[in-house]
């Protein structure tokens, strides 16, 4: 019996019955990683002894058998969330060798729930990218076709879960960095509403947009992870104090009478025909399960990418100012302190990070602030209002997660604008602060690549998107398919 193929729910059941130990679950993943990660390259760092020691401590304490939500379950962590004593480099040369000195809020939550913190997953440097090609430590490969990208920026987390190298993983989503790789690798990925999950201990990219969220094999596992991750934290001033519902309890309520909104602006020319067919099939399936479909309009959709790339880069240029060779990371000495900053940052950041820092600095600079940054914030208001109006007519919005399936490594590497446009369906949720989940809804014929369905919900209404996702998942078999590795 190979434990690594189980879902969290299946593994928890075995652990509770004493049919396996946390050590065996952890060892099973380590063996799997040893066997296939040479092909996937999903992990940047692993410490088998430390992971097994954590598992042994859990086995001794008995938390795997009691009611703890993740007792004995190993989880992989994207390389930008601090885990005390483990490296945290955001896949960047500028943080090479950095060791975290504290736990992020979500890591405290995972430890409290009995999870084993397994290892660090690959990503685009500082979460800037849609393909994980911008990692300083090499490319992660899509488990369904090793010549293709896994999506990004949380590509390592998505590939690890889809390749059965982890039961679940954490990622972060600033413009689609959880949902798009989940879609392209064929697993479940959820971006919580802004403020639902604390970012304390997450290395910041764009602070008005960033959220931490889970990757899992099923929607029910996703709900379980959200029960652990969500909640108020006084260390993050954007964390909302609203109580956290029991996401698992809501899963089985079905979709009868639920209103599904289809934004006419999202079903556009140029979308991959197989993607569109799969998503339309999913909509019909939900209709047959009792949901009502209403056409809605999000009229400012066409402006979202432009707004996003001004706001996200402006915030990034400010957030990444802290990497200056003084308190952490690499330092390149210079003639004076200004020269040291310049040389350190010039040597430490990769091409995409440099490009975005330059764009963001320009958008905030004297004389251009009103024309770029302020205007983008005003159009952001229009985009947010589009969602508010739409959610008066419907309970959830259904879209493709990405207009296309996984593309070939290198295909878009030299055309940043083309790469940016692949985020078109996901960035609206970050700009509007709403929640969204991606789950498998089909495959292309040849090559066989996963297609993702995106379910968007009202702010703080993760319950409803999980319920829609779970209802669809129960009626289909897509989530049971696994790549051959």
């Amino acid at each position, binding site marked *: 019996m190979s434990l690594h193929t189980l879902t969290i729910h299946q593994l928890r059941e075995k652990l509770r019955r004493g049919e396996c130990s946390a050590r065996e679950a952890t060892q099973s993943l380590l063996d799997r990683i040893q066997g296939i990660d040479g092909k996937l390259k999903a992990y940047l760092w692993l410490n088998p002894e430390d992971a097994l020691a954590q598992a042994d401590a859990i086995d001794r304490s008995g938390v795997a058998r009691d009611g703890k939500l993740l007792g004995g379950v190993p989880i992989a962590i994207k390389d930008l969330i601090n885990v005390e004593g483990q490296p945290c480099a955001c896949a960047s040369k500028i943080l090479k060798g950095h060791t975290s000195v504290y736990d992020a809020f979500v890591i405290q939550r995972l430890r409290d729930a009995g999870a084993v913190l397994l290892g660090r997953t690959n990503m685009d440097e500082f979460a800037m990218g849609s393909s994980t090609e911008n990692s300083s430590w090499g490319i992660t490969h899509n488990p369904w076709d090793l010549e293709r990208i896994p999506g990004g920026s949380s590509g390592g987390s998505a590939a690890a879960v889809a390749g059965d190298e982890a039961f679940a993983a954490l990622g972060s989503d600033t413009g689609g960095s959880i949902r798009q790789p989940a879609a392209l690798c064929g697993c479940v990925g959820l971006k919580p509403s802004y403020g639902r999950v604390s970012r304390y201990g997450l290395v910041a990219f764009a602070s008005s947009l960033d959220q931490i969220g889970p990757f899992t094999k099923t929607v029910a596992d996703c709900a379980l992870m959200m029960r652990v991750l969500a909640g108020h934290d006084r260390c993050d001033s954007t964390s909302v104090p609203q109580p956290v519902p029991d996401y698992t309890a809501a899963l089985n309520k079905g979709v009868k009478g639920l209103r599904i909104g289809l934004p006419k602006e999202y079903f556009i020319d140029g979308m991959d025909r197989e993607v569109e067919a799969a998503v339309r099939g999913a909509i019909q399936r939900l209709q047959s399960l009792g949901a009502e479909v209403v056409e809605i309009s999000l009229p400012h959709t066409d402006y979202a990418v432009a707004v996003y790339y001004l706001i996200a880069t402006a915030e990034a240029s400010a957030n990444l100012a802290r990497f200056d*060779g003084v308190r952490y990371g690499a330092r390149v000495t210079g003639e004076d302190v200004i020269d040291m900053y*310049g040389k350190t940052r010039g040597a430490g950041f990769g091409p995409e990070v*440099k490009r975005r820092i330059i764009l963001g600095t320009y958008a905030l600079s004297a004389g251009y602030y009103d024309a770029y940054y302020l205007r983008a914030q005003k159009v952001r208001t229009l985009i*947010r209002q589009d969602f508010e109006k739409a959610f008066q007519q419907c309970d959830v919005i259904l879209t493709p997660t990405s207009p296309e399936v996984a593309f070939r490594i290198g295909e878009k590497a030299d055309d940043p604008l083309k790469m940016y446009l692949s985020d078109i369906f996901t960035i609206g949720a970050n700009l509007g602060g709403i929640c969204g989940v991606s789950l498998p809804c089909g495959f292309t014929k040849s090559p066989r690549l996963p297609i993702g369905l995106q379910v968007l919900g009202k702010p703080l209404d993760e319950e409803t998107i999980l319920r829609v996702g779970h209802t669809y998942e129960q009626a289909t078999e897509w989530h049971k398919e696994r790549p051959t590795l």
Partner: protein
Amino acid sequence: MSENTSTFDISYVAHLARMHLTDAEKAKISAQLKDILTYVEKLNELDVSHVEPTAHATPLSNVFRKDEVRPSIDREKVLQNAPEQARDLFIVPKIVE
């Protein structure tokens, strides 16, 4: 915005960002940013004169807490990742002559 993009001075912006770029990087990033800045000009199609800006999407404002002493990270730990440190301090090049 069109005039703005034509006067885009990458050396000046790189200096503002305190980030050295090679000549090859300057040429490449300038060319790519010209495309991106042309693309974002589409925001000028909209009349936003009566629209309030959105800085972030949470309904929260003025989040206060009690000013009370809480434990923080040990000084030794804070300094452990520094490129250069001594006597409980970060060491930087001389700033004032």
